[in-house]
Every structure is written in structure tokens, then in C-alpha cells.
């Protein structure tokens, strides 16, 4: 059985900066894993490399056995990877529902001719796109705001919308980039429940970048920790919590008197 995601010896240089340093890890199918590390560790860069936003400087990335290294973004996405963003990237001119529909329509198509005339399958396919999108909105608790302009939502809701939009792509691997950023502890708990529910209901492989320890430690049985672009620890929450390198990365070194 192929691994959901495999990184092998991935390096990325931005000019002289060694942003990702010989990263290798494996995600099994159906895992819910966490990618943690202090700011600037290179976590989002990993997402960008996987989704083809950047090209790797060396190394390889495979997705269910298929090599996706340096493939174009839209190709990678079409193979079944979806992501959310650290700095929210919703479509500002569209409503909440339209944002999700824009993703959902990738799997429900009609021909150009049907699109120009609204004949044939247009009506039924449009309805299907709308219904499926509404269902996803219901799942994340945004159904009552479907016709609001996406950027007028409160911050936490916008994050949930991005998740709904990513789910509409029916991905096999979901990458969540700091989904809990800017949330208070109560909201983080809600998010935890949502992620776990999505994981159970859809049977997805999920990789979460997070800063919030509460989220990651609670729901991710498999955690990868990075610092300065390199892997410093990998294992279950207990292992990570006690790992000296991890403590050093987050809390700094103890000064020996």
C-alpha cells in the first residue's frame, strides 16, 4: 500500500537561505498528523513545496506512490490535495456559498455550450453544486450565512469557510495551515472537534500545521517537529512533549550557570 504523502530528502533554498533542510517524513493513509515548530521553521514552505507553489531545490515528494515533485499547482490539486492558508485567501467578491461552489464545481461539470445557454444539464448540475456546497456549509456551521459576502464574516468563521471550501474539492489529503490562528481557547476546542469529525466522516489524511499546542497535542497521534528547516523530532504527543530538542526550539536553551 502506498503512503499518502512521502517527502524524501527535500531541500529548498531561497537565495542563501536554507529554508528546508533535508526533510523526510511519511504520512500513512488516513492519518491525522501535526507539523509543528517555531515561527520561521519552514512549515508553510513544506506545504508550498507539496502543492507546487515553490519548486524544490532537491529531493522528491510522492503522493500515493505518484511523484509530484515540482508539478504545477493545479495538477497537484487535481490529483487530490487541498489546503487552507495561513493568511486566509477567500474570494473577496463572492459570497460564502459561492466560495464553496467555486471549489465544488470542479467535480460537477457541464459543457461550455450548456453553460452559455443554461440548457441541458445546466439546471440539474447547478442545483447539485449548490446542494453539496450547502451541505458542507452546514457541517462547518455556516449555512445560515450562505449569502453573506465572504470577507464580512468574523475571522474564525472565515477560517471555517476555507476548510469547507477545501473539503469541496473531495481531496484525499487535506493540508491545514494554522487553522486555529487568532482563536481563543473555546474556539480552538470547537475547531478540534470539527477537525476530528471531518477526519472520521471523510476518512481523509490530514496534516495540520499549528502553533497552538492544545490543538495538535490533543488530536494528532503523529507529530513532526521542525526547526530551522530541519526535522528535529517525530513521534506521538508524549514523545514530542518530552523531547529535549523540541523544548529547546520552543523555549530556548537553558543557560548553564
Amino acid at each position, binding site marked *: 500500500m502506498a503512503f499518502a504523502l512521502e517527502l524524501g530528502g527535500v531541500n529548498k533554498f531561497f537565495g542563501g537561505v536554507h529554508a528546508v533542510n533535508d526533510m523526510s517524513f511519511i504520512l500513512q493513509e488516513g492519518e491525522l498528523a501535526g507539523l509543528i515548530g517555531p515561527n520561521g521553521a519552514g512549515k*508553510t514552505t513544506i506545504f*508550498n513545496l507539496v502543492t507546487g*507553489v515553490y519548486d524544490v531545490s532537491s529531493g522528491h515528494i510522492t503522493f500515493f506512490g505518484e511523484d509530484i515533485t515540482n508539478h504545477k499547482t493545479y495538477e497537484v490539486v487535481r490529483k487530490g490535495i487541498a489546503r487552507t*492558508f495561513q*493568511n486566509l485567501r477567500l474570494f473577496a467578491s463572492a459570497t460564502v456559498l459561492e466560495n464553496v461552489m467555486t471549489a465544488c464545481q470542479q467535480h460537477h461539470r457541464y459543457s461550455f455550450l450548456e453553460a452559455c445557454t443554461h440548457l441541458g444539464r445546466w439546471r440539474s448540475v447547478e442545483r447539485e453544486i449548490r446542494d453539496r456546497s450547502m451541505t458542507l456549509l452546514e457541517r462547518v456551521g455556516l449555512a445560515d450565512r450562505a449569502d453573506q459576502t465572504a470577507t464580512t464574516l468574523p475571522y474564525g468563521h472565515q477560517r471555517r469557510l476555507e476548510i469547507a471550501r477545501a473539503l469541496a474539492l473531495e481531496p484525499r489529503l487535506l493540508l491545514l495551515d494554522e487553522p486555529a490562528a487568532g482563536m481563543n481557547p473555546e474556539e480552538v476546542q470547537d475547531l478540534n472537534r470539527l477537525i476530528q469529525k471531518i477526519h472520521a466522516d471523510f476518512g481523509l489524511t490530514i496534516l495540520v500545521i499549528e502553533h497552538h499546542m492544545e490543538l495538535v497535542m490533543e488530536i494528532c497521534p503523529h507529530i513532526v517537529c521542525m526547526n530551522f528547516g530541519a526535522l528535529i523530532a517525530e513521534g506521538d504527543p508524549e514523545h514530542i512533549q518530552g523531547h529535549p530538542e523540541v523544548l529547546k526550539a520552543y523555549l530556548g536553551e537553558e543557560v548553564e550557570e
Partner: protein
Amino acid sequence: MGTLLQQIINGLSLGSVYALIAVGYSLVYSILLFSNFAHGSFLVIGGYSCYFALKTLGMNIWLAGGLSLLAAGASAILTERLAYKPIRERTNVTLYLLIASMGMSIVIENIFVVTVGGRFRALPPVIPTDPVNLFGLATTSAFDLISLVVAVICLGGLQIFLTRTKWGLAIRAAAYNLRIAGLMGVNVSRLISLVFFVAGVLAAVGGIFLSVRYTLYPQLGGITIKAFVAAVIGGLGSLPGAVVGSLILGLAEMLTAGFISSQLRDLVVFSLLVITLLFRPTGLFGKSVGEKI
């Protein structure tokens, strides 16, 4: 051989004038990351101010030139304050700035059309155009040599300004990252005005030489499209790139006009643009602006 050398000198001379325009345009682009389509109008303002200073006010070329530089620089600042600043402060959609710049370009050009009329005007012959014999190898006009020399002096002056002065350093920092430069204490508003002033001044110098070469008319600013092409070839945002691109363009134009056909000059210019976009879209020295994703 003589003709070839002649055309090369013509090409370098034309290219150096393009360089003055392209550099100003690239300078604004490197700071604000948008194409100021109104750049050509500063050129026209420079040309007309010089013309009227010479004809109506009877000044000598130095005074007239100085006046036109100031006029162009001031209009550049005014354009920025009136049209771009309000948009910039409200949104970061560069499309709106693009459209506004196009609008300004049309407005300024047509202000001249309706006030002074669209007919061609020849500048009084204050810049000598007599033929000059170069070491017996070729004859070229004094005008070409002078414009080449003046362009070199201006660009050299700009280089010194950028590398040796405090404001020059601020501009280079802002070209790298405007917001951070602001956070580091640079007065962004004043910096932008300064950049526009410099761009306007350079355009005016180019405008004066172009008016002598091609006669003066309101649509002369249209020649800026060639400077844009030069900037793209050299790499948008890169000043040395703008110079190199301009020289290449000037040479290509003159060599085509001299040896193939004068009609095809402009086609050659646009073909160079297409070729650049096809094979090396960021231009020779261009910086690709990376977004933080």
C-alpha cells in the same frame, strides 16, 4: 562600414534617450509595483515647457531646459498626489492605479490638444545638428552625440544619487520593500514624491531631445510605449536593465530602419517584446516579485 557605424551611433543615441524615459518608469515601478502609463505625459510637459520658454520667454537653452525639468517634475508630483495617492491609500489593487494612470495620460495629452493645438512644432534650433566627422570613419550629427553625452551624464548623476546620498539609499531600500522602509523611519509619502520628481525630470530631458528629433506634438508621449517595451526587455523594476533594454531597442530600431525598411521599425520593437515575453518573461535583469503565500 560607414553606414553601419552611423546607424550604430544613431541607435545608441536613440537608445540613450529611451533609457532616460525607461529608467524613470522602472524607478516608479520598482517602488510602487505598478506601470505608470502617464509617464509619457511628463515627457510632453517637458517638451512644451521648453518650447514655450524658448519661444515666448526667449530664454536660452540652459534656463529653458531647467524650467522644463522643474515643470515636468512638479507635474509628476501633482499627478501622484491627485490621482494615485488617494487610490493607493484605499486599496492595493494595482488595476485601479493602472487605469487611473491611463486616464491621467489621456487627460494631460488632451489638455495640450485643446489648449495649444495638435499641430507639429519645431523647437528653435538651439541644439546643434550639424554633421560631425568621427575620425574619418563615419559622419553623424552633433545632435546624436550631444544627446548621448547628456543621457550618460544624467544617468551617471542618477547612479551617484542612488548610491551616495541618504535619499538614494532610502529609495533603494523602498525598492526592496516599501512597507519595511516605512517602518524603518523613511517618510514614505515624501519618498514617493521624490521618486516621481526624479522620474519626471528624466522624462523631461528625454522629451526635449525627442522634440528636437521628431518635432513636438501632444501625442509624442506615445513614444513612451517603446520605453515600456525597453523596460520589460531589461526587466521591470531593474534600472540597469532599463538602460540595457533601451540601448538594445534603439539599436534594433535604427539598424532596421537603416538596412531593412523604415516602416518595419515599430514592428521590430513589438516583436522584441513578444520574443522577450515568450522566452524570458522577467526580462534580462528583472526581479520576480515573490508573494508570501
